[in-house]
C-alpha cells in the first residue's frame, strides 16, 4: 500500500511539473490564456482586491470550486495576472487525473502497461492545453475519474461483503461527486448518472433498502453541494435559479452569441469533436459494452453508460438551446474516459496481458496525434485552442487578446480614478490584463447600480464594448444604449481599441477607489430588541451566578 501511495505521489509530482512547464510556455511565452480561465482567476482575485472585497465576488453563474481553489494562490504577489494561479490548479488537477488513471488501471489488473495509458493522457495536446491554461476541465476530469475509481472500489468491496471498505469508498464517491457538481455543470449530470448506477447495482445485489441507503450515503455530499449553490443564489442574488436564468447565465449568451443556430449541426459538431479529440473513445466504449454484455458484467455496462453521458449531455444542451456552441474543451473528459474505458475493457486475468500492451500502445500513439489534428481543425471552438495547436506545431506564439492587452496597458498608464464597467462582452479580459480589479466598479460591487445611474462624481471613466454579440449583455450598454456609438453629455471618448471604447466622465475627479457602499442589506431590528437581548443576557448571568453561589451540601442534593 505504501509503495502504491509512493507511486501515486511520484506520478503526481512528475505530471504536475510537466503541466506547470507547459503552463509557463502557454501563458507566459505564448500568452494564450483562455477567456474562461482568466475569468475564474479574476473572480478569485476580486474576492480580495476588488473595491468591495467579499467572498460572494466569486459570482453566481460559474460554479465556485475552481475559483475557490485559487483563493490562496491569488494572494501570491504577481502570480494571478499571468494566469499562473489558475494554471497551478489546473496543472495539479491534470496531474491528479493522470494518477487516477494509473490507479484505476492498476486496480483493474494492469501491470506496467498502465503507464502507456497515463502517457497517452499526459501527452494529449488537448489535455496539455487544459491543464496548462487554468481551465476547469482538469478538475472535472479528477471528479469524473474519482467517481469511476471509487465506484469500482465500492462495487468490489460490496461484492466481497466488506462493509467498512464499501462505506469508505462510498464516501470517496460522494466527495468526488461534490467536487464535480461544484466545478462544472456537466458534473451535475455525472453525479446524477452515478447515483443511478449506485442505486441499480445495489438494488440488484442487495435489495431496495440497501440501494436506498447506498444512494443516500453517496449522494448526500453532491446533493447538499447543489442545495448550497441554489440556496446561496437565493440568499445573495434573490433568485434560487439565478445561475440558470439570470442575466449572465449561459442561456443569455445563446441568442446573443448565435444567430442562425442549427441543432443538427450542433450534434454533428459533438460527434466530430469527440472523434477528433479521442477517436478511440468510440471503440473503447463499443468494446467495453460488448465485453460487458458477453460476460454479463453490470459494472462494465454502467461505467460505459457513465462516460457516454458526457457527449450525450453536450449534445442535449446544444439541441435544447442551453449552450450556444461547444468548445473542444467541453469534451476533453472523453480523453481520460477513453483511458478508463480501455482499462475496464481489458481488466481481468493474464490472458489480456499482451492485449493490454498492444492496445495501450495504440492509445498512447493515436490519442495525442489525433487530438492535435482535432484542435487544429475544430469547427466550433475558441480561437485560443486553435492558436495553441498552431503554436505547438510552429513553436511560436501568436498574438491573442491584442485589443484587450492594449486597452489594459492604456488604462494602467492613464490617469487614476475608478472605471465603471461590466464584465460582459470581453471586458473581463481587459480587467484581467490590468491586474488591478480594485480600479473597476463592476456589478459585484454593492454600489454599482448607484454609480451606474449617476456616474458623475463617482466614476472617472466608463469602459464599454461594442453592443454586438455578448456586448449586448453589458450593463452599461443596456442602461445607456447610445453611449458606445455617440457618447453622452457627461462622457467624452478618451480611447478606442478594437471593439472597446473608454469614455471619460465629466466633472471633478472622484476619490480614487471611492466606494459608497449602502448600509448592510439587513433592516434594523425593532426598538425593543436590543434592550430585550441585553436584559436576557444579564438575567442569564445573574441566574447562573446565583446558582453558583447557592450553598449546597453533598448529601441528599
Amino acid at each position: 500500500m505504501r509503495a502504491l501511495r509512493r507511486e501515486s505521489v511520484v506520478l503526481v509530482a512528475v505530471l504536475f511539473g510537466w503541466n506547470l512547464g507547459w503552463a509557463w510556455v502557454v501563458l507566459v511565452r505564448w500568452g494564450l490564456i483562455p477567456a474562461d480561465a482568466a475569468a475564474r482567476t479574476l473572480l478569485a482575485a476580486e474576492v480580495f482586491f476588488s473595491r468591495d472585497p467579499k467572498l460572494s465576488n466569486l459570482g453566481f453563474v460559474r460554479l465556485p470550486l475552481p475559483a475557490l481553489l485559487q483563493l490562496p494562490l491569488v494572494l501570491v504577489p504577481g502570480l494571478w495576472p499571468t494566469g499562473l494561479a489558475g494554471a497551478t490548479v489546473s496543472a495539479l488537477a491534470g496531474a491528479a487525473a493522470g494518477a487516477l488513471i494509473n490507479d484505476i488501471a492498476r486496480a483493474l489488473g494492469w501491470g506496467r502497461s498502465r503507464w502507456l495509458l497515463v502517457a497517452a493522457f499526459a501527452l494529449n495536446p488537448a489535455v496539455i492545453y487544459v491543464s496548462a491554461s487554468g481551465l476547469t476541465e482538469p478538475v472535472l476530469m479528477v471528479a469524473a475519474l474519482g467517481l469511476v475509481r471509487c465506484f469500482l472500489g465500492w462495487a468490489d468491496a460490496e461484492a466481497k461483503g466488506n462493509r467498512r471498505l464499501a462505506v469508505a469508498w462510498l464516501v470517496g464517491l460522494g466527495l468526488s461527486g461534490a467536487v464535480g457538481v461544484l466545478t462544472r455543470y456537466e458534473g451535475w449530470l455525472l453525479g446524477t448518472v452515478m447515483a443511478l448506477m449506485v442505486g441499480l447495482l445495489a438494488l440488484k445485489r442487495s435489495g431496495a433498502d440497501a440501494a436506498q441507503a447506498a444512494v443516500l450515503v453517496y449522494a448526500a455530499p453532491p446533493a447538499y453541494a447543489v442545495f448550497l449553490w441554489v440556496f446561496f443564489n437565493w440568499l445573495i442574488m434573490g433568485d434560487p435559479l439565478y445561475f440558470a436564468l439570470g442575466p449572465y447565465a449561459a442561456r443569455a449568451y445563446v441568442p446573443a452569441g448565435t444567430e442562425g443556430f442549427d441543432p443538427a449541426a450542433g450534434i454533428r459538431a459533438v460527434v466530430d469533436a469527440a472523434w477528433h479529440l479521442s477517436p478511440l473513445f468510440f471503440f473503447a466504449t463499443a468494446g467495453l459494452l460488448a465485453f460487458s454484455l458477453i460476460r454479463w458484467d453490470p459494472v462494465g455496462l454502467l461505467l460505459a453508460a457513465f462516460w457516454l453521458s458526457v457527449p450525450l449531455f453536450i449534445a442535449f444542451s446544444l439541441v435544447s438551446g442551453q449552450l450556444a456552441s461547444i468548445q473542444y474543451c467541453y469534451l476533453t473528459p472523453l480523453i481520460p474516459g477513453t483511458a478508463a474505458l480501455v482499462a475496464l475493457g481489458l481488466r481481468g486475468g493474464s490472458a489480456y496481458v499482451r492485449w493490454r500492451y498492444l492496445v495501450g500502445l495504440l492509445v498512447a500513439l493515436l490519442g495525442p496525434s489525433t487530438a492535435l489534428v482535432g484542435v487544429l481543425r475544430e469547427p466550433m471552438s475558441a480561437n485560443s485552442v486553435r492558436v495553441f495547436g498552431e503554436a505547438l506545431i510552429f513553436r511560436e506564439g501568436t498574438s491573442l487578446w491584442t485589443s484587450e492587452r492594449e486597452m489594459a496597458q492604456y488604462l494602467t498608464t492613464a490617469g487614476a480614478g475608478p472605471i465603471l464597467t461590466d464584465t460582459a462582452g470581453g471586458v473581463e479580459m481587459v480587467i484581467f490584463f490590468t491586474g488591478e480589479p480594485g480600479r473597476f466598479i463592476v456589478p459585484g460591487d454593492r454600489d454599482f447600480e448607484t454609480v451606474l445611474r449617476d456616474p458623475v462624481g463617482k466614476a472617472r471613466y466608463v469602459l464599454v464594448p461594442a453592443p454586438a454579440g455578448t456586448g449586448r449583455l453589458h450593463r452599461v450598454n443596456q442602461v445607456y444604449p447610445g453611449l458606445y456609438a455617440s457618447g453622452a453629455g457627461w462622457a467624452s471618448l478618451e480611447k478606442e481599441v478594437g471593439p472597446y471604447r473608454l469614455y471619460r466622465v465629466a466633472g471633478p475627479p472622484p476619490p480614487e477607489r471611492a466606494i459608497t457602499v449602502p448600509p448592510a442589506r439587513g433592516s434594523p431590528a425593532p426598538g425593543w430588541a436590543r434592550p430585550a437581548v441585553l436584559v436576557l443576557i444579564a438575567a442569564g448571568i445573574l441566574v447562573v451566578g446565583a446558582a453558583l453561589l447557592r450553598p449546597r451540601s453533598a448529601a441528599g442534593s
Partner: protein
Amino acid sequence: MAQVSRPDGVARRDPLGQILLRKGLVTGDQLAAALETQRRSGDRLGRILVSLGYVNQLAVARALAEQFGLPFRDLLADPPPAELVRLLDEDTARRFRAVPVAVDGDVVEVAVADPGDEAALVAVAARLGRPVRWVVTGELDIYRTLERVYRDVYLDRARSDLLLRRPDQSAHETFTGGQLGAALVTLALLFIGLLVAPRPVTVGLSAAVAAVYAALAAHRLYLMVRALTSTSEVEVTAEELRAIDEQTLPEYTILVPLYRETEVLPALLGALAALDYPAAKLDIKLIFDEDDPETLALARRLRPPGHFKFLVVPSGWPRTKPKALNYGLIQATGEYCVIYDAEDIPEPDQLKKAVIAFRKAPPDVVCLQARLSFYNRDQNALTRWFTAEYAQWFDLTLPGLHATGGVIPLGGNSNHFITEKVRELGAWDPYNVTEDADLGVRLARAGYRTAMFNSTTYEEANSELANWVRQRTRWLKGWMQTWLVHMRDPGPLFKELGPWGFLSFQSVIGGTIFIALANPILWTLTTVWFIGRWAEIEALFPGPAFYLTAVSLYLGNFLFAYLYALGAALRGYHTAVRYGLLAPVYWFLLSVAAWRALFHLFIRPFHWEKTAHGLHLQAEKASA
C-alpha cells in the same frame, strides 16, 4: 466416612459425582453431561453441577463433607455471630471462601466451600495463626454470611472508596472553590463588558464560538477518516474462537445492577444463560436495591441457575448505578469483569472474544469496549435516530479515538475490565451519573488504555420521548460532572493525558456539551436573521468571523449529520441512514436535554433519573 485406601497407602475418596449419584441427587445422564463439561472447562465438578442447575449448592456441600469426612454446617440455618466471622479478614475470607463459625478454646472452626483446595486451607490457617478445624458449607452461604456481616462496610466502601483515595477525582463536589471563583469572575467580566462595550464583546464571543465549532467539526472529520481507513479495534476471528481451550478460560464476573426492571428481567436472564462461556466460571452478580423488593421477588420466582448470585444493596444515598456496581465489585471473584444493564442482550460469544482480545492486546489495555446497538431499531423515528447516533458513536467516533490515541469515554455497559485494575483505579464514582465516561477518563489518566473489539451488545433504544429526554439529561449531566471533575486542575490532566489526549477530551466531552448548549442560541439567531434580516445580527459576525460561522453552520452541521448516516451504513442499518441525514431534528431534542441537564447540575447533581425499560414490549403488545 467413605474412604478407600489406595494400594500406595494414600487415602482415596469417592468421587463427588458418585456420591451425588448414590444419593439420587443427580441422574447418570446429568453426571455424564457435567463430566463432559468438566473435561472441556477443567472446572470443579460441584460448581458445574450447580451452574447446570442439577443440584443446589447445599447438596454439593453435603456431598463434599461426606467425601472429605468432614462435618457439614448450614450457615443460614445456623448463622455464626459476626464477631466470629470477623476473626478472619474479609478479603481473605472472600478470596478463599472461608468463614470462622465457632471457637473451641484455641481452635477455630472454619467453614469452607472447597475442602479440597489445600492452598486455600493453608492460607486461611496461616492467616488465623491458630489451630483450625474444618467444616464444609455451601459457597453461596459463605458469600451471604460475609454480606450479612460486612454489608455496612461494603456500603461504605461502595460510596466512599474513590472519595477517600482520590477526592480530587470524585464528583461529590460539583464545583470546587477555584471553579466557582473562575466562573463568577468570568460572568462578572462578561456582564461589565456587555455594559461598557457590547459590540466588541459580543463580536468576540461570536468569533470564539465559531472557532470552537469549526475546530470540533475538523476533529470529528479527522476521527471519521481514521476510523474508516485504519484498523481501530482488536479483531477476534472465528478461527481464534474455535481454537480456544476452555480450560484456560478464567473466572469472569458479570455485574448487573437492577432497579425496577421487572419488564425486562426475564429476557436478561435468558441472555445471560445463553452466554457461550463455561457456566461454572461465571460469577454473575444480580445487584438489587433494598428499596426495590419487586424486582428481587421476580428474580427469585424465575429461579435462575445456581451461578447467578443475588446481592442486595442497602438503601442509602446516593442511589446510583455506580454505587451498586462498586458494591458488586467488592465481592467479585473473576479475573475479568463486565457490566451489563437490565435490557442488554450481548452476543453469546462476547466473553470469550473479550478474553482472547485481552490476550492479544498490549499490556496497557485494561478495558475493552464492545459496541452497543439496539434490538428495537425500527420501532419509531426516535429509535431510528438513536440507532444512527449510536452507530456513529461506536462505529466511527470511538474507533477514531482508538486509532488516534484519544481518550475513550466508556459506554454505559459492555465494558470489560481486568478486575484488579478497576479496583486499583478506585472503581466507579458513585456521585457521577455517567460513571462509565468518568472511568474511561480516569483509566486514561492512569496511563492505561481502552480498546474496541468486534462484539456487539444489543439493548433497548428509548422509544418514548419523555423517557428519552430524562435519560439524555442524565447522560449530559454526567458528562458535565466528568468535565468539571477532570478540569479542576487542568495542568495535571494535560500532563497525564498528553496534548492529544487532552484535546480529544475537550473535543469529545467538552465539545459535545458545548454544542448541545450553544445550538439553540445560534439557531435562534440564524432563524431571526432569516426572517427579519436584522442588521444587528449581521453586525455580530463581521469579516472572518462571518465566514467561519458560515462554514460551521453549512458544512459543520452537514458533516455531523453525515456521520450519523455513515454510522448507520457501517452497521448495515439501511432504514436508519435517512434518519441520520435528518439528525438536526434530533439535535433539537439533545439541546432540550442539555439545558435540562445544566439546570439539574445545579439543583440535583447526584439525582439518577431512572430510565424506564421494556417500552418496546408494551409497544409489541399494543400492536399484537
